[in-house]
């Protein structure tokens, strides 16, 4: 089967990208050096082609009750037009079908952005659940998506946005969006830096990308996207959680809104049962200050039994290896042992947020 291509495929080839298969899409892994790209985003501005992610519009008289049933977070929290909410979509057993961002676009309209690998299943699930509601679930594959991230991202992007959106985009609070008939600009991201995620017509994507490049915004591949989100303490679907994961063991408890006891949502019963029984595992951050790199699957030895690294890499910002790991909830030791290719190395347990807005969030003992 041939790989799907985004509207920016030619731009990636022009820039000398190393292209790889990502969830059936041919996507840039890096354009030369993942490490340099990572640092460019922390220090200046970088742009990511995320057109493989899927936009889904939800509208209709029962859009709100539908989403309050479909999603574990509560869209009733969205009080301002354009405001965004991060949520998991759970199955009946409480496992995570996907994580997504949902925007309230006014009235009875919402817009969701879902992961590429899960998009097809997500849409089928949404449409199935929607049968019981007076609501329309409409995939919008005609958009290209570009994320511009970094301390200089906003200032470099603003002059290149459509004129009617510029001033409102400049005033956007984090986790909010503005739009016109064709473009949608949100102050969101997946790097722990300021910036925008922009949805625009596919035909305009290449031109916008080149203008950003001329303004000094560097193309960044999926490799750096992964290390940036890991440093920022953001989960990756399929790696840190999937449809068999109890979200309470994946640092996602804060996204599950149980406050309104009247609100039934898919997975609620399972979550409440887990809560009542007591959650047996939790997700922590790890730092390895020795020479070695924690990887997904690395075994972590604890006094209460083994844990496992869900996401691990070398942190280009910190110069050491960092990871998320799922460990027995009873463990309160500050130091654990990691099995790095047969050698046991000490790792330190930290809060799983390592870098935000260019600043280290943990202290290193180097």
């Amino acid at each position: 089967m041939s790989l799907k291509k985004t509207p920016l495929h030619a731009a990636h080839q022009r820039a000398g990208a190393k292209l790889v298969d990502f969830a059936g899409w041919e996507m840039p892994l890096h354009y030369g050096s993942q490490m340099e790209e990572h640092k460019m985003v922390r220090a200046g501005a970088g742009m990511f082609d995320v057109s493989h992610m899927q936009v889904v519009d939800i509208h209709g008289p029962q859009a709100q009750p539908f989403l309050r049933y479909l999603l574990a977070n509560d869209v009733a929290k969205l009080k301002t037009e354009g405001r965004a909410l991060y949520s998991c979509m759970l199955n009946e057993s409480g496992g995570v079908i996907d994580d997504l961002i949902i925007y309230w676009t006014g009235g009875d309209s919402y817009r969701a952005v879902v992961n590429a690998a899960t998009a097809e299943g997500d849409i089928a699930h949404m449409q199935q659940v929607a049968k019981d509601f007076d609501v329309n679930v409409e995939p919008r594959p005609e958009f290209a998506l570009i994320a511009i991230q970094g301390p200089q991202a906003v200032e470099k992007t603003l002059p290149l946005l459509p004129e009617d959106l510029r001033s409102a985009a400049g005033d956007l609070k984090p986790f909010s969006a503005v739009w016109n008939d064709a473009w949608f600009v949100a102050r969101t991201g997946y790097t722990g830096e300021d910036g925008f995620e922009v949805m625009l017509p596919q035909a305009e994507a290449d031109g916008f990308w080149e203008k950003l490049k001329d303004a000094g915004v560097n193309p960044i591949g999926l490799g750096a996207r992964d290390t940036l989100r890991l440093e920022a303490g953001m989960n990756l679907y399929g790696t840190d959680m999937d449809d068999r994961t109890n979200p309470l063991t994946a640092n996602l408890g804060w996204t599950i809104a149980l406050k309104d006891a009247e609100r039934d949502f898919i997975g609620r019963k399972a979550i409440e049962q887990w809560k009542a029984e007591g959650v047996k595992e939790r997700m922590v951050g790890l730092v390895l200050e020795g020479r070695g790199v924690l990887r997904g699957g690395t075994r972590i030895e604890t006094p209460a039994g083994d844990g496992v690294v869900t996401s691990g890499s070398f942190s280009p910002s910190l110069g050491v290896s960092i990871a998320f790991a799922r460990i027995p909830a009873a463990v309160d030791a500050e130091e654990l042992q990691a099995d790095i290719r047969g050698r046991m190395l000490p790792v330190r347990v930290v809060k799983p947020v390592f870098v935000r807005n260019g600043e280290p969030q943990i202290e290193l003992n180097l």
Partner: protein
Amino acid sequence: MSEAPKDLKYTKSHEWVRQEADGSVTIGITDHAQELLGDLVFVEAPEAGASVEAGSACATVESVKAASDVYAPLSGEVTEANEELADSPEKVNESPFDEGWLFKMKPSDASQLDALMDADAYAAHVEAES
């Protein structure tokens, strides 16, 4: 396309070997290998004095993406490791055949060199693998 200098010998596992005038050899990983690995973050080379067997794992190169063993192309005694790489592993990416060398050794049987590939054979091997 990655480069493979004509004056070096190569292994199937992507190490290169340079024969020095004093009978020693210098060993590193190829441009193709560093390209596959991506940015290196740690290099663990064997210590001077260590004896190594041809084909045995004797060094580790670790990138942002993965850790990979380096196999001794020849048997013999390690005479020197590239200490620069402890602080600057990126030299392997930037200059795999020169500043990014990993270690030097004195082969116990120089005829083992004849079993290694020349640049053309290595290029064909890389081609066949991809």
